[in-house]
C-alpha cells in the first residue's frame, strides 16, 4: 500500500509502486481532470503539484510521492470552493478551446506565479514551454497569466494594506 495525500485527503493505494502517479490519480482516485498526453514528459498535460512543485505525473512513479502531498486541478478550486485567480483569469480571457491541455497549463501557471509573482514574457516562455496546446491558445495563456498576476498582486497589496492599517 502506498499512502498519498491528494488535494488534502490522505489515501492509500494498492498499486505497483512503479505505476506513474497519473494513472493512480485518474483510475484509483477517480480524479480525471489530470490528462494523459504523451507518457514521456514532453507535453505537460499531466502536470500536477508535488508538495507545491510542478511535476510530470506521467513519468513519476507513485512510490516517489509516497507520504507526500499532491495537488491536482480539482484541488486548486472549483465553483463551490472558489476558483483560483488563475482559473478566473482563464475564464476572463476565454483561454480554453478543446480544453484538454488546460488542467496542465493552469497547474504550470499556478506554479510559475507562486515562485515568481510578476513574470516577464521570457519567464512565461521558460515556465510554459513544456506545455503543449494543439489549439494554439498560447497568446491567451500569456494574457491569462498576466491577468492573474495582476489580480494576485492587487490582493496581496490589499491584504498587506489591511495588516498595516490593523
Amino acid at each position, binding site marked *: 500500500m502506498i499512502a498519498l495525500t491528494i488535494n488534502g485527503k490522505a489515501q492509500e493505494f494498492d*498499486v*505497483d509502486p512503479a*505505476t*506513474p502517479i497519473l*494513472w493512480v490519480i485518474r*483510475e*484509483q482516485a*477517480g*480524479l*480525471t*481532470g*489530470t*490528462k*494523459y*498526453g*504523451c*507518457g*514521456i514528459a*514532453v*507535453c505537460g*498535460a499531466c502536470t500536477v503539484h508535488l508538495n507545491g512543485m510542478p511535476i510530470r505525473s506521467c513519468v513519476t512513479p507513485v512510490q516517489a510521492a509516497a507520504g507526500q502531498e499532491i495537488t*491536482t*486541478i*480539482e484541488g*486548486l*478550486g*472549483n*465553483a463551490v470552493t472558489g*476558483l483560483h485567480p488563475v*482559473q478566473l483569469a*482563464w*475564464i476572463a480571457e*476565454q*483561454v*480554453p*478551446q*478543446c*480544453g*484538454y*491541455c*488546460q*488542467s496542465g497549463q*493552469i497547474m504550470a501557471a499556478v506554479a510559475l506565479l507562486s515562485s515568481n509573482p510578476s513574470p516577464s514574457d521570457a519567464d*512565461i*516562455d*521558460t515556465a*510554459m*514551454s513544456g*506545455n*503543449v*496546446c*494543439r*489549439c*494554439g*491558445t*498560447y*497568446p*491567451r*495563456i*500569456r494574457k491569462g497569466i498576466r491577468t492573474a498576476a495582476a489580480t494576485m498582486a492587487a490582493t496581496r497589496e490589499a491584504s498587506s494594506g489591511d495588516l498595516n492599517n490593523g
Partner: protein
Amino acid sequence: MGKWTRRAFITTGVLAGGVLAIGVAIRPGNRSSKVAGLVAGENESLINIWLKLGPDNTVTAIIPHAEMGQGVHTTLAMMLADELDADWSLVKMLEAPAHPEYANYALARGYTLGDKQFPSWLLPTVDGFFLQATKMMSLQITGGSTSTRTTGQSAMRIAGAAAKAVLLQAAAESWGVPVSELQAKGSHILHDSSGRRAPYAEFATQASQLKAPVMPRLKNPDEFTIMGTDVPKFDIPAKVDGSAVFGIDATVPGMKYATVRAAPVFGTRVETVDSESIQAMPGIRKVVNLGDAVAVIADSYWQASQALNQLPVQFTQSADESRDQADIYKQFANDLDAATATGKEQTDFRSGDTKAALANANRTVLAEYRVPYLAHATMEPMNCTAWVHDGLCELWLGTQNPLGFAAEVAKAIDFDIQKVLVHNQYLGGGFGRRAFSDYAIQAARIALESPYPVKLIWSREEDMRHDHYRQASISRFKAALDADGKPTAWENQFTEKHDPVEAPYIPYGIDNQYIHFTESKTHVPWGFWRSVDHSLHAFFTESFIDELAVAAGKDPYRYRHDLLAQATRFRDVLDLAATKSDWDRQLPDNWGRGIAIHKSFGSIVAQVVEVEVVEGKVQARRVVCAVDAGFAIHPDGMKAQMESGIAYGLTAALYGDISIRRGAVAQSNFHDYQMLRMNEAPAIETYIINSGESLGGAGEPGTPSIAPALANAIFDATGHRIRELPIKLHDLRKSNLEAKDVA
C-alpha cells in the same frame, strides 16, 4: 454541457417537469414525410426539435454538433436565442443525442438550396440521403467548418424565429389583441398600450398547439442583439476546474482498461501472438487478436500497456516494407512525368489557352514544391469506452460524427444500428481525426469479447503511427509573364486530389489557366486534416505567386493587389492585412515579412507574417490576420479560431513531418513530431470584415495561409525560397546559404 439521460433519449417529446419542447407537437410523426418535405423544399421539420422552453422561462438550445474547442455550442445557441429575442442569461444548451431525429437536416437543406459553398467532401454522403433516405439517418457530422453556416443559418435561426412567432400569436389570442401590437423582448411578450408584460413560458402550452410559420422572418444584422457579441462560451468554466468530461474521462462502473498495437505497416496483419507469455503479469485479463491489431485488457491502463510492450507479436510481411519516404516522392514525380508524357492528365480547371500563352511568353517561371504527410496529433489520444450488454453496445467517446460512428460500429459488429448507443463527450481536439471510427470499432470488438465495460486508450505512439494522414504531395508550376511581369498563363500539376474541389484554384485575374492532377496512391491511409486540401494548395499557389512577384521585380503585396482588381472581396481582405501590418515599415535586421491570401469554407483569410531568422533559427514574431467570413457571429470566437488555425498551420509549416520508413510511420511522439510551443508562438492580431456575404466557416480557414506567408517571409529575410515543407529541413544559417550561392 448538458447531457441526455437515457430516459430523455427514449422519451424525446414527453419531457418531464412541464418542460415544453417547442415544435414537438407540430413535428410530422412520420420520418419519411419529413424527408419528403425537405426535398420538396418545405422546412417545417427544421423548426421542431431545436429548442425547449421551460416553465421557469429558460430556453434550451439543442445543438446537433460536437464541441471540440471551436465554440459551436455557444455560437449556435446565440443564433437561436437572437431570433427568439431571448434573454441570454436564461439560455442553456444541450448536445443532441446521436439519434436519427437529430441528423443534419440542415446540411441537406443547404444542399437542396444549392449552396455553392457546401463542402464537396460531404456531398457523396448527403447525396446518399436523397437517393436513399435511410443513409441520411447516420449523418451527424461536425466538420468542413459547416456548423454555423448550415445548422446555424438553416435550423437554429429558423427555429428561434418560428418559436417567437407562435409565442406572439398565442399571446395575442390570450390577451385578445392584434399580434401587430405585441413585441417580443428579453424572453417576454410586451403589450405597450396596456403595459402588459408576461414571460414566454406563460404561452408555451398554447403556442405548441399553433402551426409554426414555414418561412418565419429572420432579422437583419442591424436588429441582432446577441449575434455579433462576445458572450462567454458555455464550455469554458468546466475546462478550468477539471470537471469537463472528455471521452477518455468517461467512467462506467466495473470497467477494465485496454490498449492496442496495430500492425506497423499499413495493410499488414497479426500472424502470431503469444498470449500465454503475459498471462502471469499483474492485472492481466485477456489478450484480444483483432486481426490487424492486438489488444491487452487489464485492471489498469498501466498494467495493460506494460504487458502489451512485452507481448510477442509477429506481423505478416508486405511489399510496402521496402518503401521509404524518398520512394514515395519518387513515385509521385514519376507519375507526374508519365502523365505529362502520355497526356493522361486529369483536368481540374481550364480557361483560355495556356500552351499558346506559354509559347508566346516574354518569360517563363517554373517551380516544384512538395509537402509531407501530416498527423493530427490531437492532445487527447484516440480512446473509446465500450460496453456490450443486454443486446446493446454502448459507446462513450469523443466523435465528430456520432450517428456515423453508430452506423459503422453496428456494421462492424453486426448489430442493428438502433442497438448502438453513442454517448458523445467533449473532444480533446478533432481537426478531422475524430471523423474516423477505427478506434470506436476496435473498442466495440474488444467489448464484444468481454463481460465488463472496457476503456480502450491508444498510447501516443499508437495515435501517431495509426492516424489517417494529410497526404504528401508534389505540385509543379509553370507561368508565363508578359513584358510588365504580369502573369498571362498559370499551369499547375499536382498529385492526388481530395477535397474541397476548389482548393487549388486561385483568385487572381490570369486569363489562361490549366490546373490538372494525377492520382498516385500509396498504402498510407488518408484523412481530413484541418482545412483538408487547402492546407497544401495554399502553400503551393501562394508561394508560387510570390515567386512570380519576385521574378517581375514587384512588391509581393502590390503584385497580388493588382491581380485582384476583379476580385474585390479578396482585395479588401488583402489590403486590410497589409495596412494593419504597416506593410512598408522598416523591419529590424534579420527580419522579413511575407503575405498570403486564401479562401476556404466560404471565408477569405489574408495573413502577414513577420519573421526573424538568426543562426538559422526561424522565429515567427508577428502575424496580422484579416478575415471576411460574411459576418462574425461571435467575434472573439472568430479571433480564437484564427489564432488556433494559425498555430496549427505554423506547427505544420515549421515541424510537421510524418515520414515513411520501411513502410511504417517513423515518428512516434512529440519529441520527433514537434509541436509549436509558448516560446515560439507569435503575437497575433486579427481583424474582421463583416461584408454581409454568405456566412463562411471559422474552424479551418485560419490554417491555409500561414505556411506560405511564413515561407514568403523567410525568403524576404534570407533570400532562400522554401519549396519543401517542413521548414526544419532547411539549413537557413547564413554561412550555409552563402556557400550555396557560391556553388
